């Protein structure tokens, strides 16, 4: 302030208006009726509200995550365990590996018993994942011999990390069930397939054909035994007898081979020692599940926040603009009012 200003303000201050005694008494009378002290109201500030809101959102997410992890574990317990073994299903190895105690259990197909009264063609294909390929292959060969069977073919090959072996073995039909059980105990079952085909009808047909041939041979032999038989007719009958005997022998051979074939079951064993292409993911623990749930809840909160921001911010801006405009208008009006007095 300049010097004259200072003198002026000093004079203004010295002559400052003072309330009259009447006014003082009037206002003090009001004061005696007023409350002694105003109650403290909660005073919210943005810099406090924002961290508190963030903390609340985080706490809600963590609480939701913990509750979610408990409820999800409850659901899992209520869900029946999946079927581990299947007679011909791929991917069973992963499940079998996750439950190693079950891999030696007899499979449902091992219980398919061959008929003892009818001729049947019994074939089984088993794919196993084994830890030690060499040991498992040797053990399979030993088992085959111990059941009175024989090896039809072996195809063995191993590398530094993986190896496969293919065995086709023949097991006496009476021991095939026990043999399959022992084979499946060598490793984890990847795939299993059992095929039983009834061939009794063809056996019966061949048997009837043999009987017919024998009857015909006997009839021809009886005609040949007649001393009155003409030379030409005897020659013709001799040729027919020879043909019938050859047919009988051939058919007996076929019957014998078929008999031998159905008395043994064919078991194809495929052994592999390579690791699973995709390791099954480890089951998440309760903490992991809680964190997952909390993360998803936080994500949902963020989505809601973004949605509110996208929808609300333009409206808030518009409201702020209107309020600012109204304040400006009022201030201008007030200024005009005070300027004219």
């Amino acid at each position, binding site marked *: *302030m300049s010097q*004259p*200003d200072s003198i*002026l*303000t000093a*004079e*203004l*201050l*010295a*002559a*400052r*208006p*003072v*309330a*009259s005694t*009447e*006014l*003082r008494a*009037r*206002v*003090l009378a*009001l*004061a*005696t*009726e*007023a*409350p*002694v*002290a*105003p*109650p*403290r*109201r909660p*005073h919210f500030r943005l810099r406090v509200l924002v961290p508190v809101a963030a903390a609340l959102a985080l706490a809600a997410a963590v609480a939701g995550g913990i509750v979610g992890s408990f409820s999800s574990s409850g659901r899992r317990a209520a869900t029946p365990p999946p079927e581990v073994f299947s007679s011909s299903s791929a991917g069973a190895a992963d499940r079998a590996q996750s439950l190693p105690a079950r891999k030696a259990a007899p499979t449902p197909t091992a219980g398919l018993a061959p008929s003892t009264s009818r001729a049947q063609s019994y074939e089984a294909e088993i794919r196993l994942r084994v830890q030690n390929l060499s040991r498992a292959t040797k053990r399979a060969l030993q088992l085959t011999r111990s059941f009175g069977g024989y090896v039809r073919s072996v195809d063995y090959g191993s590398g530094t990390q993986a190896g496969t072996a293919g065995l086709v073995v023949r097991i006496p039909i009476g021991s095939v069930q026990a043999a399959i059980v022992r084979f499946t105990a060598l490793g984890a079952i990847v795939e299993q397939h059992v095929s039983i085909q009834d061939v009794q009808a063809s056996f019966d047909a061949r048997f009837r054909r043999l009987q017919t041939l024998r009857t015909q041979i006997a009839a021809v032999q009886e005609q040949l035994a007649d001393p009155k038989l003409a030379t030409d007719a005897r020659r013709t009958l001799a040729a027919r007898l020879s043909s019938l005997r050859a047919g009988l022998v051939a058919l007996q051979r076929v019957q014998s081979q078929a008999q031998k074939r159905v008395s043994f079951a064919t078991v194809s064993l495929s052994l592999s020692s390579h690791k699973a292409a995709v390791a099954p993911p480890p089951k998440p623990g309760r903490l992991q599940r809680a964190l997952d749930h909390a993360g998803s809840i936080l994500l949902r909160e963020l989505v809601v926040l973004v949605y509110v921001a996208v929808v609300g911010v333009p409206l808030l801006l518009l409201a702020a603009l209107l309020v600012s405009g109204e*304040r400006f208008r009022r*201030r201008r009006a*007030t*200024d005009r*009012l*005070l*300027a*004219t*007095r």
Partner: protein
Amino acid sequence: VQTSFETAVEDHLDDVHAYLVYLTGDRGLAEDLTADTFEKACRLWKRYDARRASAKTWLCQIARTTALDHFRSESRRRRREHVYNLDVPEAVEGTYGEGLSPTIESALAALSAGEREVIALRVLLDFDGESAARLLGISPTACSTRLSRALKKLEDGVRSHVAA
């Protein structure tokens, strides 16, 4: 620190009264408006929060609202009666303070209510620039400008009266 209403009255009655005298330029009206201000303040005292503003600021804000409401109703009344007078009101001795020279009284009376208001707030009530600006609803810079213009006008008015 939260104070009682009675303490606030004792401490700031003269401040509010002086402010309203300068704002209205009428002692009688200022007394009535002061009484109205404290009546409102008594009703609103439950809402007062010392952390937001001092009692003096809060009371002056109420006083300003009360005075502006009065000015508006007075303007409407005058418009209705067609007696609106833009002439400078005649200075009544002792309006702006006991013992104030008639020259300054006249110069103060020649100022607008807005100019007297800013002088009252900054000089008489010793508000700092920021508090006064907040109360007036303007920026601190605008408040400083308004004060210097008002004081300059007051000084010019005093000089012209002395010269006359």
